[in-house]
Structure formats: C-alpha cells, structure tokens
C-alpha cells in the first residue's frame, strides 16, 4: 500500500460506506456513509459523544466496524495489515501521547525506526512545525503544552504519509496557542498536499480552517457543507445552531467595543 506520493494531487481518498459501530448494543456510528476527496481538509464537528472521535479511529483500525466498509483509495481497509496501515497515517491526539522516556528527536525518529525506514531529518521536521533545532535533545516534560503538540504533529508527519488525522489536537491549549497552531496545521496541509480530518467541538475553528465541515449527532451526519454554505445558512438546523454561537459571541464583542 502506498499512501504517500510526491504529487499533492495524489493525496488519498477516503470513503465510509454504511458503517455501523456499536458498543454494548448502543450505536456510536449508525449506518454512516461519507466520501472525502484527496487533498480535502475536513472538520468533524459535534457534541461530546456524537461519534466524531470514533469515526476517526475507524480510519486506522483502532476501531473495527460491525457493519459496512472503510475504503482508502478504493481499497477496503479490513483486508489490510493494521500495523502497516497505521504507519502510513499520521495521528494526533488531544493528550499528545509523546513517549516521556524519549527525547524530542527520538519521539520523531521512532516512526521510521519501527517501520525499518530511512532515518528522518529531525531538524527539518522541527522546523516544519515551527520549533528550533535546539529542541531535539529535550524531553517532553520540559516543553509547554503547545510545544508538545507541535512535536506530536511533527511525529505524525514523520512517517511521510499523506493522510493526517487529528483528534481535538488543540483542546487542552490556551486560545492564543490554539489559534497559532491551527494556522500551522492548515499551512502544513497545503504545503504537503495532505488529506486532513480534524475532529473539534469548536465550530469557529472548523469554519476558519476547513474546506468542508461535517456535523455529527448520535453517530449520524446531520450537516455536510463548506464553511461558506454553513455561514450563509441552509446547511440544516443543527449547523445553524452551531454557527449561531460564535456569530453571536462576535456580535456581543463588537457591541462591547462600541
């Protein structure tokens, strides 16, 4: 399997087909179908428990559906070796999950190391996420939350895969860091020609970063539109309700400044 290619236009397609995943009889994902074009930056929005993280975990087989199929580049992933599949997909967590006993350089280099691939250029990987080369020998505990997540993103990209999955990556960060890191991610997406899925509960973040926003509720898609469509209304009542929150906040802020 090759997820990585040199040309941005070759970024992988992703498709869910009537996927159902139940925990103890309760559906987390309910007969969901979704097609994501190569090179798309897609934001998955929804309340806690809506199934957005679960949907992400289905892509690299951290979860396996009871029904339906997941395709990458029109290949059914249930027939793929999960270990090789995961090595080709970058994954970023809210709680980062850096290996505390390894330096920053070791944390980044571990990805090609376990796959038996070429050693990675750590300095270049750090520069890509906006960190100086001097960070290479530090341990995760010596870094701030934002710096840790930058290393987490560098690690996710170190495998050279063209697909990046991010599960609330900025959830634990302060708003300033959060905004800056979001822009870094969008820039990397464009520069490297990735297919990116960002799970977030923050509609404003989704609207500002993504090409396409999908709203989940109870394991089903309740809205699916571009940010422009969402802001103009007509993406459905659930989307309207979510868009209304940042918009009203902005209006109230504007009111205060007057």
């Amino acid at each position, binding site marked *: 399997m090759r997820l990585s290619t040199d040309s941005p236009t070759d970024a992988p397609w992703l498709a869910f087909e009537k996927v159902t995943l139940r925990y103890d009889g309760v559906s987390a994902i309910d007969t969901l179908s979704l097609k994501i074009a190569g090179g798309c930056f897609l934001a998955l929005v929804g309340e806690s428990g809506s199934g957005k993280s679960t949907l992400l975990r289905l892509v690299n087989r*951290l979860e396996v559906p009871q029904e339906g199929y997941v395709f990458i580049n029109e290949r059914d992933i249930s027939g793929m070796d999960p270990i*090789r599949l995961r090595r080709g997909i970058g994954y970023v967590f809210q709680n980062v*999950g850096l290996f505390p006993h390894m330096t920053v350089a070791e944390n980044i280099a571990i*990805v090609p190391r376990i796959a038996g691939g070429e050693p990675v250029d750590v300095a270049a990987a750090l520069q890509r996420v906006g960190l100086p080369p001097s960070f290479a020998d530090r341990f995760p505990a010596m870094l701030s939350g934002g710096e840790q997540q930058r290393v987490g993103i560098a690690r996710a990209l170190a495998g050279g895969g063209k697909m990046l999955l991010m599960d609330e990556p900025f959830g634990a960060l302060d708003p300033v860091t959060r905004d800056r890191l979001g822009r870094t991610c969008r820039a990397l997406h464009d520069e490297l020609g990735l297919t990116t899925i960002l799970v977030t509960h923050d509609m404003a973040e989704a609207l500002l970063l993504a090409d396409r926003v999908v709203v989940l509720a109870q394991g089903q898609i309740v809205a699916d539109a571009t940010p422009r469509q969402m802001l103009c209304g007509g993406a459905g009542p659930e989307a309207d309700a979510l868009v209304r929150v940042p918009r009203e906040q902005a209006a109230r802020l504007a009111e205060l400044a007057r």
Partner: protein
Amino acid sequence: MNEALAQLPPLVANHVLLSAAALGLALLIGLPLGIAASRRPALGTVALGAAGLVQTIPGLALLALFYPLLLAVSALVGGRIPALGFLPALLALTLYALLPILRNVVAGLRGIDPAVRQAADAIGMTAWQRLRLVEAPLAAPVAMAGIRTAAVWTIGAATLATTVGYPSLGNPIFAGLQTEAWTLVLAGCIAAALLAIVTDVLLGVIEHGIARRQRGRVIAALIAVVAGVALACAPLLATRARTVTVGAKNFSEQYILARLIGKRLEAAGYHVAYREGLGSAVAFRALSSGDIDVYVDYSGTLWTGAMARRDVKPRAAMLAEITRWMAAGPKTRLVGPLGFENAYALAMRPGAGIVSLADLAVRAPRLTLGADLEFLDRPEWRAIRDAYSLHFRATRAYSPTFMYRALASGQADVISAFSSDGRIAADHLVVLSDPREAMPHYDALLLVSPARAGDARFLAAISPLVNRIPVEAMRTANYMVDRDSGKASPEAAAAWLAAKIDAQ
C-alpha cells in the same frame, strides 16, 4: 573465629548460587506473568493473590512443605527427583521472590499513561515493539525496585535452605545456635547481611541508572553483579572432584561425629561436604536417596521411625534385624555400632525423690515436661507415656541447649535427656530408670548410602570407628561443645575424640 571464617567460602558460594538461581527463575516466571497480568485484570487478581498468599507462609514452613511435596511427586513419576537439597530450596525461594517482582511489574505497567499506549498503537507499533520500546523502559524503574526487594529477601531466606540439607550461610547460624557458638552465628549472620547489602547497592545503582537513563552505569553495575556471582561461585568448581557428603542431625553429638567421620574420609583422599541440621526422618531418607553418603543414627530411632516397629527387643536381636531390614529394603548399609548408646531418657534435678518413670507417673500431673523439638512427636514418647500413664501439667518444646537451661531455671521439672549427654554428669542430673523396659535401645550406628554400601575404600576409611567410642568419651566430647564457658568447636571436640580413639 578463624575456624568460623575458614568454612565460609564454600557456603557463600552455595548461598550465592542458590539465591541467584532462585532470583533468575523468579524473573523468568515473574516478568512474563506480570506482563500478562497487567493486561488481563482477572489474571492479575489471581496471580497477585496467589503470590501474596505464598508470602504469608513463613519461609521455614514453605521450605518444609516442599519436602513431602517433592517426595510425593518423585514417587508419582517413579523417578529420582531429589526431595532434599538444592531443588526444594530453589522452588521455595523462587515462590518467595515472585510477589515483589510480580507486584512491581504489574504496578509499573499499569502506571503508564493510557495516552502513551494509544500513541504507540496509532503510530503503528506491533505489540512487541510497544512492549520493548515503550512499556518496558517506562515500567523498568518500578519493576527494578521490586527485583531489588526480591533479591534482598531471597538472600536472607536462603539461610533457611540449611534445614532441607542445602549448604548455605544458615549452616554456621544453625550449628552455632545448637552448640551456643556465638562466633559461628555471627559469622553466618554478618556474611549473609553483607551479601544482601552489596546486592542491594548494586541493584540500586541499576535502578537509578534506568530511571535516569544512564546506560553506562546500568551496564557497569550489571557486569559487577555477574562478576560477583561468578567470583562467589568459584570455590564450587574447585571442590567438585570426588566429593562425599556427611550428614548430621541437629545436635552437638551429631556435629562432632560428622567431623570425626569427615576427617577420616579426608585422610583417605575424599573431598568432604557436610549437610547438617537434618531432622531424624529427613536424615534417613537423605541417606536412602543418596543425598548424603554417611551419617550416624540410633537403633531405637530407626526401629520405631523408619521401620515402624512397636515391639521392644534385646540389643543383639535388634541390630541383626536392622541389618537385615536395611539390606532388603532401602539398600543402605549398617557398618556397625560405634560403641555407645544415646538413649532417650527423662532426667530431673536431684532432690525430688524420684528415681524411676514409675515414681514420676504419680507426681507428673503437678510437673512441667521440657522436651526437645521432636520428642513429643516421637513413638518413644508415646511408648513411655502409655506404659506409665504419664500426664504432665504442661509440656514445652525447646532446642536441646535451651532445654537444659529450662531445667536449671525451673521452667521445666523434667526433660527429655540423652544418655550420652555430657550435661547429665556436669549438672548432676538424675536419669530416671525404665523398669518396664518401654524404651528401645539407642545404639549409635554408622550408616552408609546404597552407593557406598559396596565401596570398599570408603568403608575401610570409616570402619575403624566401629565399637571404638565408649559412652564416657562421647559424653566428654559432647560436654566440650555444650558447656557454657570455655566451649570447644565441634571440630576441636572431634579431634579430641579421634586422639582418644587412637590412644586406645
């Protein structure tokens, strides 16, 4: 003191070998079991519960339990699984070391942040890579602390291996306790403590090295541990050739006779090892199975114990029957009697007006019996108890040396004494006569294992002792070791006895 120090190197070697083997085996079991237990909570509960239960059994009891267990297993497979010596000690110590290792491996693995484990999965680590690259290094400092605890416990508990016939630093401790040779006790204790401290320090360096990721220190300390074990075990290689083992039970006379026999065997060119502090039943079984080559037992002990006889016969008939029984059954050999008896007898302080067991029976309900550790479980006690209807106000068990102290201090009124004991004459004790002849004879007999039964060279080395030790000589030798001040070591008493025999 020099004498005490001289016998330490081979004991240290055996002690280190046993401790290292037990710890190694415990690691071999504990590490995979701990990893499995950390992943399956049900298995973890069962494994930690079982290991915790083992830990509540006193060390000595755990060792003792393995003796009948291994005998049963050996009988089951019809093979020769040794029930004494290295194997039971190894198994008991391994079980003992398992809990701290298991507990800390599980704690170390369970303490890892779930996010770290999830990240390992998400970047595509195989289960083995996750264990090797992430879980093992993160759990290592906690696991190493458990290994360190296990090592120190094992080295301490290994002193108890002496009781199942494996030589360890417990030998001087137990022998010294029996003969009140405190320098021996101290030598054993200090040597065991030093071993434990050195091990603790080295493993501590490894533990801190792992925690601080100082690979060099870890490797250096590991090399020191391996080199230390190899160095300590070196004396074992030197004394491998033609070693014979002399057994001894747990009282002074046995220690002296073992040295007397050992010196003769050394003079004949054998390397001699000693297994001391064996219980009566254990000693004869050890002889039958070849774990020891030679020891001294008593006709009455064999008669009522191993032969399970209830009748009493005259001395000559008894010896003839024992000889026949040995040749027919356990294939061991009775070389001959040494010439004295060490019979069980009840003894009292003088002045009570009691001279026989018949007199005693009347007064017994107001008196306290002090017995040695095995007397109350022995058929001899049942024989005189039933023959004279003896019922005491209380009975207490002591190690032989403390039993005489108890009699002198009035804690006991009557004790189970031995006719060859030097303290009987020294303390002017009254030995109660046995008018109904309820007690069998206790001739000291020189016994050899099946392998030595036809070994002419071996027999020639020890048979000059037959019928050459009168009871007075034995009492004197015993008293040299047992008396409170100016006491001699068993070696010195044996040398005195050897000179006495040669002078005859």
